[in-house]
């Protein structure tokens, strides 16, 4: 495991009972401190890859190391190094946003033996969420919009400063303004505090703007990997979206 890479995914295969093959040999190397994007259509294997890295699913074959820790052999240790925010964000409907943030931050940092950082991280998460105190302290999460829930989830995921923050479609379903704000929060905070972020999105422009490197995934396989500029130039495209479409077209041509 190279010290420059906080996440190493090697030849990941995932076959679900019933013969559905979701991943067919995915490999990724995510440099420490980078923002890394996984781009692909629905059903390409993005969420399955994330869930395996986050110790929710077990791979059929292959290896995942998070900061040098094997997620299958030492899932608890791996979870001390990562935070996962799924695409379908939620929140306990009977807890306020502030109570939720305190619960997850305290649990996470206590497990890491960083109890002394709890108060600071809770304040940080509340600030990062951008929610007014009225919403954070008075409203239960059951009354929150999808965007508010997502801001709370991303905020705590960054504020605990994990080695790896996995954000599955962090801006999906949000309006333009909310997406923009959240993207800026992720970028600023990750860069400022050296948090490695692995994220997915359907929004190619967002990925091009945000990510240091991207991997294009299709039918459970990585079909292209590099900086957005490298990929755009390789396909002679004007942006990542166009490059992605050309990459797919060339694959279909080969097929």
């Amino acid at each position, binding site marked *: 495991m190279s010290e420059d890479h906080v996440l190493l995914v090697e030849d990941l295969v995932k076959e679900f009972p019933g013969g559905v093959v979701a991943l067919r040999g995915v490999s990724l190397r995510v440099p420490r401190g980078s923002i890394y994007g996984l781009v692909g259509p629905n059903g390409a294997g993005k969420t399955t890859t994330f869930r395996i890295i986050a110790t*929710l699913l077990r791979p059929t074959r292959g290896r995942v190391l998070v900061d040098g820790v094997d997620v299958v052999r030492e*899932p*608890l240790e791996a979870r001390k190094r*990562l935070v*996962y925010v799924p695409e379908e964000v939620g929140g306990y409907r009977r807890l306020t946003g502030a109570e939720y943030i305190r619960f997850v931050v305290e649990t996470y940092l206590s497990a890491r033996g960083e109890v002394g950082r709890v108060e600071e991280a809770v304040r940080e998460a509340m600030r990062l969420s951008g929610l007014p105190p009225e919403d954070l302290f008075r409203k239960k999460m059951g009354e929150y919009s999808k965007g508010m829930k997502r801001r709370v*989830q991303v905020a705590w995921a960054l504020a605990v400063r994990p080695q790896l923050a996995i954000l599955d479609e962090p801006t999906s379903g949000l309006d333009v303004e909310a997406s923009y704000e959240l993207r800026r929060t992720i970028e600023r905070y990750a860069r400022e505090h050296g948090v490695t972020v692995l994220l997915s999105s359907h929004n190619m422009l967002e990925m091009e703007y945000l990510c240091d490197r991207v991997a294009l995934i299709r039918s459970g396989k990585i079909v292209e990997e590099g900086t957005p500029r490298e990929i755009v130039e390789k396909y002679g495209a004007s942006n990542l979206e166009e490059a992605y479409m050309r990459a797919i077209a060339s694959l279909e041509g080969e097929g």
Partner: protein
Amino acid sequence: MAGGTLRPLVGKELRSLLREPTVIAMILLPFIMYSGMAPLYGSMARQAAEAAKLQGVRVAIAACHPGPLERTVLELIAGQMKNATVVDSCDPLGLVREGYDVVMYFNFSSRPPKAVLYIRGRISSLMKTLALPSTLSGIIKEAGRERINVTTEAYIVLDGRVWSYQDLNSVFGAAMTLSYAMLFVLFPAASLGAALIGAEREERTLEVLFTLPVPRRNIAIAKAVAALVAAVLAAASALGGLYTMMRGISASVRVTAGGETAAQASAAPSLLHYYGAGGLAAYAAAVAAEALMAVSLAMLIGLFASTMRGAQSAAVIAVVPAMLPSLLVLTGLPQTSLLKLAPYTATLYAALSPLVGLEPALQSLAAQLLEALAALALLTKALESEVAITGPETLRRLRRRLGALRGRR
């Protein structure tokens, strides 16, 4: 006109309801439960019938050195029964030890004459044992007609211990109540535990929770503890309410009946008198152990449900078997069987501890604790596996496969 629009509306509502698994369960469960109980109630009825006919009961009609007239009375009574023998004995308990099932011991020197019934009881047929005094008193009255007025008093000899009939009846009543009362804790505990899992899935918080760096066992324990605390509070509220209601009723009875009922009520021995601190502690521990198992099983089954309501239905599946052992009290408890090691029997044996002793209760409690811990370990294992995430999908796939199989047929 109204009928024309009502028909499709009712049709739609019925289709929605009858395709709901919880509704189907609600409809079918009573049939399954009651028909399943048929053998138990059959056994109860058989015991009562046997008691009425004194079937298989060996009776000694005894008195200490009876005179000729007294002997005639004894023979008159013996003539009313099939297996009765007149015996001259001054040691009625000795006759029970010799193997008589019932000893009717007459004391003609008291005024009026007194018949003391000593009945050899069996825990395996307690209903029959408790029905015998009434049958035997009836026979004595019938034999004496109007000419002899005999008062009766009954004692039951159970495993060498002599119980007054009233005491045994009270203990049996208390055991029956206690063996059912644990459901006040088990049902809410299982339902709340399953709801806690279902809510995580419904509120889409399960994945974040499961990626927090805490052992899944701790998550399971935290949910079980929360469900148990709420269940105990619910049970305390229910029992507190019942107690208040009963006090209200007995206060009204005292007002109408004067001081006599109050005196009787205060003379009635308390649960502590029958059970002792050890018995009650064993019962409380048994309830906790059974509830822990119910909540663990409910959460385990609930993992396969995609909604909170579905998960709560799981609680019913986990708790219904807990009702069966308490029914065994009515039908008879096989003393030599391994029943006490079976799940959900710990509260039953603790409830019966004044009758069968504390040792079987403790053995049953130890077994139940192990079973509860095994259920918790199984739940932890499931939470650590993919099932925690893919449970509902696994269930859907299984249903599709079953559907395909049915289609092929």
